[in-house]
């Protein structure tokens, strides 16, 4: 099979100058065999299990990176939701479990470990409650642990008691990590319809129904898509969709190739390829820039939702052809602090929280990495979450909220989180109260869309 020189040079250019990379290779590890009533034994069990399963993860991914010459930016681990495996533990809090996960992550040499999680869409078990109450201290006393709580599904409705609780948990987490600008909240995601196999942090966990050990891959390449779109001469929107589709295919193929080889070498099952376009703060690696390349003066102005719908759909179509097994979130990411174009749009005044909410109805993630004033009430945070959960529930899609009420900040301040977590401009929220709505509690019932049988 002959590859043409132009194609070879195209690939080289994607890696060298357009930021093509494999964003993450995430190993999903089942911890169900580790359950034990004694918390110390439980911690030993999960530590040994993770160390055994992941001991070659970093070495193998580095080998693959060298052979293929495609950078693999992050190695991560996701585990079975801790609330489930620790249900039998006779203990008051699960902070020690988070510390064990953190220690294992450091030993293995990865940057994040996800799965300090609970699934509470219909209600909470004692184990779920224990985990949720442990979150603020757990995230404050560890560096690499990520937490996620699923509070809604299309089939179950929205657990508004959990939503109300999470508003307070977020405030507490921000307060306990006050000296790091509320960084704890950057490691906490609230979900509707959370996928079992998402490789991206902070929402990754190893779901029920997954095999014992699995390799999931998250690719990326907003820079590549950006360059491809800008190279077109006077395209129609159909031409743009076609271009994005083809480019997404090429990007995704890299993930498929690397993921299969890593799984083979580690004797794990190849799980899924998540086709999401995940931006980074690096110049040119921006999803907002792609939307602007389509002809919007500034991301967030009218037309942004339509442009994002086009982008998200084209990415899925191109990516679906590239892989035998697509899953996770698979769409465009719009994390504000991690996208230099988004940051500029907020500072310019063209991108608001309300517009971001509209955008989440057509793309895969949700309100992500958004800093709001430090004095935002817990009930307002809960109401923001409730809105996002409703979008996910009604539209049968995944939505999520990762919001940071950075202590001591006000609208217009810039909050520095560092590294891939980037810099967040503090955005205004509505000042009218949602307190009474949130305090009512109970469940928003599953919508008629759930009756699919």
């Amino acid at each position, binding site marked *: *099979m002959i590859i043409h020189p132009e194609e070879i040079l195209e*690939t*080289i250019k994607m890696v060298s100058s357009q930021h093509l990379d494999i964003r993450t290779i995430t190993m999903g590890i089942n911890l169900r065999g580790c359950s034990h009533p004694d918390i110390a034994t439980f911690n030993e069990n999960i530590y040994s299990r993770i160390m055994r399963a992941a001991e070659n993860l970093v070495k193998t991914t580095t080998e693959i990176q060298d*052979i293929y*010459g*495609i950078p693999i930016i992050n190695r991560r681990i996701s585990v079975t939701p801790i609330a489930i495996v620790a249900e039998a533990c006779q203990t008051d809090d699960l902070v020690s479990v988070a510390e064990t996960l953190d220690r294992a992550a450091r030993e293995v040499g990865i940057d994040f470990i996800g799965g300090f999680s609970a699934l509470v869409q219909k209600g909470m078990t004692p184990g779920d409650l224990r985990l949720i109450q442990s979150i603020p201290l757990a995230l404050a006393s560890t560096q690499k642990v990520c937490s996620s709580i699923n509070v809604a599904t299309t089939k179950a409705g929205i657990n508004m008691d959990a939503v109300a609780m999470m508003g307070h948990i977020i405030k507490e987490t921000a307060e306990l990590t006050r000296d790091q600008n509320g960084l704890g909240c950057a490691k906490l995601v609230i979900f509707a319809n959370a996928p079992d196999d998402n490789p991206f942090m902070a929402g990754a966990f190893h779901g029920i129904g997954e095999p014992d050990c699995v390799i999931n891959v998250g690719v990326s390449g907003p820079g590549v898509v950006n360059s491809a779109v800008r190279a077109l001469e006077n395209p129609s929107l159909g031409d743009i969709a076609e271009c994005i589709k083809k480019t997404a295919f090429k990007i995704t193929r*890299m993930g498929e190739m690397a993921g299969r080889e890593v799984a083979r070498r580690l004797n794990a099952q190849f799980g899924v390829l998540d086709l999401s376009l995940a931006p980074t703060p690096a110049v040119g690696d921006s999803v907002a820039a792609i939307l602007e390349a389509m002809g919007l003066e500034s991301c967030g102005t009218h037309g942004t939702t339509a442009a994002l719908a086009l982008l998200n759909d084209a990415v899925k179509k191109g990516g679906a052809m590239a892989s035998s097994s697509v899953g996770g979130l698979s769409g465009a990411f719009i994390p504000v602090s991690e996208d230099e174009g988004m940051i500029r749009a907020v500072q310019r005044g063209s991108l608001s929280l309300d517009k971001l909410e509209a955008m989440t109805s057509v793309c895969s993630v949700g309100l992500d990495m958004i800093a709001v004033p430090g004095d935002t009430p817990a009930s307002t945070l809960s109401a923001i979450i409730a809105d996002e959960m409703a979008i996910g529930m009604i539209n049968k899609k995944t939505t999520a909220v990762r919001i940071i009420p950075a202590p001591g900040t006000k609208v217009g301040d810039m909050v520095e989180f560092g590294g891939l977590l980037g810099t967040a401009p503090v955005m205004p929220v509505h000042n009218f109260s949602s307190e009474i709505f949130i305090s009512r509690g109970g469940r928003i019932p599953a919508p008629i869309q759930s009756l699919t049988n």
Partner: protein
Amino acid sequence: MSSSRFVITVIGLDRVGIVAGISRVMAEHRVNIADIRQTIMNDLFTMIMLAEVTGENFDLSAFQEAMSGIGQELGVEVIVKHEDVFRFMHRI
């Protein structure tokens, strides 16, 4: 892995000795040239080689380092990637 075949690209300003320098390093590491394409457009030298390694115990990192080194000496950019990268991306 399906094979030990690599695509080696060399890009830079044309000068005397590029092909000689690159192929010397490849011979030192017992890497065989299976196919080669080359263009010189104005002053820009572009060479793409399909290279094959047949022996066991091929030290890829040492080879990549040596190629990078000769590239720097010659003032050209040398990139070595496994051929799967290109096959996967451009063919279904």
